[in-house]
């Protein structure tokens, strides 16, 4: 039996800065996961991933990552993806410094 599809967001690294970005419903790359499109349909997810991967001049390494609907938009479910929304834990560098 096929595994049940869990909600996803499309994420990648920005081409120039290399920082984590997420794809929005209106085809922007956002640095805030809460603005990302939460994908609940597998076929739609596959299609969106192909579209994302075609934008090679903006990003690198696009993939689907698990997420859940939170109060203010999608939230990561795995700690690795959570770290990507914040930055490293040893310095206040990366997103935690830029978004706050």
């Amino acid at each position: 039996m096929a595994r049940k599809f869990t909600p996803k967001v499309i994420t990648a690294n920005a081409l120039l800065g290399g920082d984590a970005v997420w794809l929005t419903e209106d085809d922007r790359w956002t640095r805030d996961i809460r603005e990302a499109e939460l994908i609940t349909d597998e076929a739609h997810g596959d299609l969106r991933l192909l579209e994302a991967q075609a934008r090679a001049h903006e990003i690198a390494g696009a993939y689907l990552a698990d997420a859940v609907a939170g109060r203010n938009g999608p939230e990561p479910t795995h700690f690795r993806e959570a770290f990507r929304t914040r930055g490293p834990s040893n310095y206040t560098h990366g997103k935690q410094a830029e978004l706050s």
Partner: protein
Amino acid sequence: MYVYNDFDEAFVRERVAQFRGQVERRIDGSLTEDEFKPLRLMNGLYLQLHAYMLRVAVPYGTLNAAQMRQLAYIADRWDKGYGHFTTRQNIQYNWPKLQDVPDMLEALADVGMHAIQTSGNTIRNVTADHFAGAAMDEIEDPRPIAELLRQWSTDHPEFQFLPRKFKIAVTGSENDRAVTKAHDIGLRMVRNDAGEPGFEVIVGGGLGRTPMVGKVLRDFLPKADLLPYCEAIVSVYNLLGRRDNKYKARIKITVHENGMEKIRDLVDARFAEISKGFAGHDQALLEQITASFAPPAFVIKSTDGFEAARLANPAFRSWTDTNLSPHKADGYAIVSISIKKHGATPGDATSDQMRVMADLAAKYGHNELRISHAQNVILPHVHKSDLAKVYAALREADLATANIGLASDIIACPGMDYCALATARSIPIAQDIATRFDELKIEHDIGQLKIKISGCINACGHHHVGHIGILGLDRAGVENYQITLGGDGTETTTIGERAGPGFSADEIVPAIERLVTGYLDLRKDADETFLQTYRRLGMAPFKTILYPSEDKADAA
């Protein structure tokens, strides 16, 4: 120290120009990421969790003051004002922007440095004993050989697409400070019966998911045969090594699967075939290189001031007890600068600290610095009469932590704070353990203890050869830390043994504390180290200490 000749200079500049063009083509969309990735990796540029990462080679861990200052400049100009020294004696910048990397490489070329072959399935930066040229127990300085290997392996056309990465380490001493038995090729200088220096050649060592201790391929290889012999080994591996499965592609698996006899026969045959082709050119080159590593002009002066300062200043005395090693020249000492301040990130130095260390090397250290695989910085040649001044300057720069070889001198890979491959974080665990031992004020009482932490099975943090090894894993979406005990990375290399089930991020620091305080009760006397106690008693008592509740459950 070796200085680039016209050939090196032209080669590195050309590489920078090529890469500049490649970056431009990536940015303007002419190259896809799939096309660009192998090109950037050939130049040491990774894409990590939050940013790109540039890994710069520090050949055999040796730097001069100008190079260290340039590393500081690069950190300020294009990164966040610091650099991370690695277990392969390299430096990594965690925040470069893609469009800036060609300028960073140009700035490196200005001081005779590069990032070539710090990634990819090539022969990587050759590492060496960080006390090379200074150690009292040394037969010869291993760096001329390391430099010869660097020149030979750089852009070697036969070895740009090996089955997997290939790491060589070399030491000139019987006491192995270069972890040679955990390398694809380890070269340990020894003397034969006639007293001539040569190399014990070790192959097939490595950590990672299948840790193996290297085995001796040749007991004694004359120095003159070294380069063709190494080429024969890599050449045999290049054909025989597996390309069907990247987890079975390292030479350790090739040796394991084919057996040492077969490897030895093939290497000997290949050596017979190619050695004549070297026609002595390598030896002429080695002679030139060796001349550039002539020892500095050591001075002879009184060390009375040193002894007086030691008596007068207990903090200085403590630092000299832990951070100095014996030097081959009278009146000199090897200074290890700890980049492991309690609670700080292991191996991270700010640009200001780099400049202080560069200035000290220029003023008191015959213009030399080393990066150790333990992620510390070494001033290899300091006269004892200058040590008090060196210490004062280090203290000013927050670099005077007296903990070399102690519990808080922890090796830690970047882990999931930076690395895209990591399965858990390493840095916060190292920070918390070091902070805890500092609070307890017992690390000097504990004595020699090597704690090494890796954030994934690839073992960049050398956890397999830590007296206490910690491996961070992802267990059902939660960070989990496995402990191994009894590892050793010296000439008596041993792979540590897994203690049992892993610990959560909250449990791991108390577990390490239990383990170490428990050792204090188990040891015969204050001179018996953690590793010696473990070897004497085995795993059982340590297991009881680590898993007390299970023990009770068994008894019930």
